[in-house]
């Protein structure tokens, strides 16, 4: 295992050096948050792809397909189609009206204090939920690279925080990542995202080619092999839909429950992306709306190609390694070491190990495993950086500067103070997500977690607020706050009542669905509308309607948009 670990550490070391170098160059707030607004369209496209393709895409989807066949591929489909929502409705208006954060755009029309506070709340919730899954992904990698770490560190982690014992691997790697991220800034992360996106695509192409090579580039014999893998519970072949959520087993509201789960998941996937704060922030780093548009095009090309490759990665792991043999440590013949349970987040690294060994011998296996683990780790690190930035800027820029220091304790805020608050927020969100990760457990699938919590909050809280601010004249502060706070709370509440992703599954949950989007997202939109009418009745917010004309013109044309220092 020494080659694996050494190579892994070398790649991680290189990323740390890049950050340290970039951190010295990050001086002003516009640099820290928006990379000086000088990022080109294609660079930003790569960076969006880097920000977007997290542990959920790289480890999670492959794991879902490896364990459930076809149904896992639905995540790949939804996460690409989602970019049409972004491209058609969000990217350009966002660049034209925003400054650093989502709340900057909302507070053009709305009363800044309540809207900034509410947006900070929903942004921190989305980021923490998203980051929780990244922590689990990073923990899974460490468990593969250092199989004895959990056992050795256990005595030091024998205490509980609010009834949950921290997972040693997750806690350790999570803390390391937070230290790395808090030292850097957006300049660092834009470049790290680009480097990482290239690495990730490279890793996926390499493994896909090896899978195809295994089948002598015969697509049909690859599918023959997938077809021969059968699900134990339903008896279906892995090429068939209906394994993750079996059809015809139960009904809910008079409809097949599996269908409701899949549609609910689809809603979260395609509407959530347009409300993810760390993706929206990417549009503030480009010079103008045209560059925002072209960056979405670049991102769609990259992201779509990657998601098509999940066919080879996921089905490859199912067909070649097999779901029963995917766990932290394997013994001869690629069987799980005794006493270990399969963990679907480890499908990609296990596939790499298998293919490397098959083609290049034992050393080749270690080498390829190290490379894929390092790519996955760089992936996670880069996403954690993006998420931290989104959460800390929402809190520091929106809440601390926009609310606390503007409305409560007046005074000029130095950039140093602002960045300090951002870093403290980052640390708190990081610790929260490490705790949440331990609470959910290391075997919960990271893609299902991200889609099931973070994307639903984004779609039910943030998306209604953004869309109505841009396109609905009567929308006001009450409506915005109702959806931002209400959508977040309803989602978290339903997920908490629902079956969740912890294994073994809860038998009779208070809310029957894993994917709560089908309820939470309409509730978010209804809250926005009802809130607006209540606001109208109490005549609280005349300004929002008056200011609609301004945001309308700005969003559509880019008049008065935040300029780039080098010109558009």
């Amino acid at each position, binding site marked *: 295992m020494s080659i694996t670990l050494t190579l892994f550490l070398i790649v991680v070391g290189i990323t740390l050096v890049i950050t340290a170098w970039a951190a010295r160059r990050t001086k002003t707030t516009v640099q820290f948050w928006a990379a000086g607004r000088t990022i080109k369209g294609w660079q930003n496209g790569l960076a969006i792809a880097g920000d977007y393709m997290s542990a959920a895409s790289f480890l999670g989807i492959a794991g879902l397909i490896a364990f459930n066949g076809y149904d896992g591929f639905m995540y790949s489909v939804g996460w690409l189609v989602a970019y049409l*929502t972004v491209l058609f409705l969000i990217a350009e208006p966002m660049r034209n009206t925003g400054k650093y954060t989502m709340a900057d755009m909302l507070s053009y029309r709305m009363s800044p204090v309540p809207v900034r506070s509410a947006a900070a709340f929903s942004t921190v919730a989305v980021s923490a939920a998203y980051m929780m899954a990244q922590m689990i992904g990073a923990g899974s990698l460490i468990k593969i690279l250092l199989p004895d770490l959990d056992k050795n560190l256990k005595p030091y982690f024998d205490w509980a925080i609010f009834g949950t014992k921290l997972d040693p691997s997750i806690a350790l790697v999570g803390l390391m990542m937070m230290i790395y991220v808090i030292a850097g800034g957006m300049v660092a992360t834009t470049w790290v995202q680009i480097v990482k996106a290239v690495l990730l695509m490279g890793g996926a192409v390499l493994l896909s080619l090896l899978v195809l090579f295994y089948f002598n580039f015969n697509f049909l014999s690859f599918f023959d092999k997938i077809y021969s893998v059968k699900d134990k519970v339903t008896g279906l072949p892995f090429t068939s839909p209906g394994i993750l959520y079996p059809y015809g087993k139960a009904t809910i509201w008079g409809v097949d429950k599996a269908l409701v789960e899949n549609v609910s998941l689809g809603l979260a996937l395609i509407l959530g992306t347009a409300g993810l704060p760390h993706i929206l922030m990417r549009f503030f780093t480009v010079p103008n709306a045209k560059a925002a548009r072209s960056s979405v095009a670049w991102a769609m090309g990259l992201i779509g190609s990657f998601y098509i490759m999940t066919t080879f990665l996921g089905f490859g792991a199912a067909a070649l390694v097999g779901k029963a043999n995917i766990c932290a440590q394997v013994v001869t013949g690629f069987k799980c070491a005794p006493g270990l349970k399969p963990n679907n987040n480890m499908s990609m690294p296990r596939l790499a190990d298998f293919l490397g060994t098959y083609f290049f011998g034992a050393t080749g296996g270690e080498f390829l495993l190290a490379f894929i683990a390092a790519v996955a780790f760089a992936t996670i690190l880069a996403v954690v950086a993006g998420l931290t930035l989104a959460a800390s800027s929402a809190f520091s820029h929106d809440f601390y500067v926009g609310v606390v220091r503007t409305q409560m304790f007046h005074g000029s805020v130095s950039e140093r103070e602002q960045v300090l608050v951002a870093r403290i927020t980052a640390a708190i969100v990081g610790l929260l997500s490490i705790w949440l990760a331990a609470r959910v457990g290391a075997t919960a699938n990271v893609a299902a977690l991200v889609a099931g919590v973070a994307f639903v909050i984004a779609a039910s809280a943030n998306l209604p607020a953004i869309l109505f601010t841009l396109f609905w004249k009567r929308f006001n502060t009450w409506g915005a706050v109702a959806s931002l706070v209400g959508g977040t709370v309803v989602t978290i509440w339903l997920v908490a009542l629902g079956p969740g992703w912890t294994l073994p599954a809860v038998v009779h949950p208070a809310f029957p669905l894993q994917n709560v989007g089908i309820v939470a997202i309409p509730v978010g939109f209804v809250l926005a509308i009802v809130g607006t009418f209540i606001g109208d009745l109490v005549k609280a917010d005349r300004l929002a309607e008056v200011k609609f*004309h301004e945001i*309308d*013109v700005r969003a559509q044309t880019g008049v008065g948009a935040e300029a780039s220092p080098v010109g558009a």
Partner: protein
Amino acid sequence: MEVGKSLPRQSAPPSPAAAAGDEVHWEGLEETDEFRQLVQARWRFVAPATVFFLIYYFALPFSNGLFPGVMRTEIIGHINLAYVFALSEFVMAWVLAYFYIRQATRVFDPLAEKVRRRASQGK
């Protein structure tokens, strides 16, 4: 406030007084022919395209759930209709994105430029 120049870099929201003075101007821009054409052109593309991709996207989970037998029909070897439909979603997304960007470059950008030019000429 001079429009067309970049806003001052500060976090404080614009004061209500300044905003009130501004509003006539924004409404004026909103009522120009160029702006109306831009909004119309944009919605004429975006509205049907959005409806189309939503229907196309949700057709996949609905067909999988409602017609499982049909979706398991194998087309070539063990490649079934469900997988081919899923792949077609990628093509659909790329094609729609291509058409949007073409439309935006040809139609929306020149119209937006006209509005911006009018805005920078003052009230």
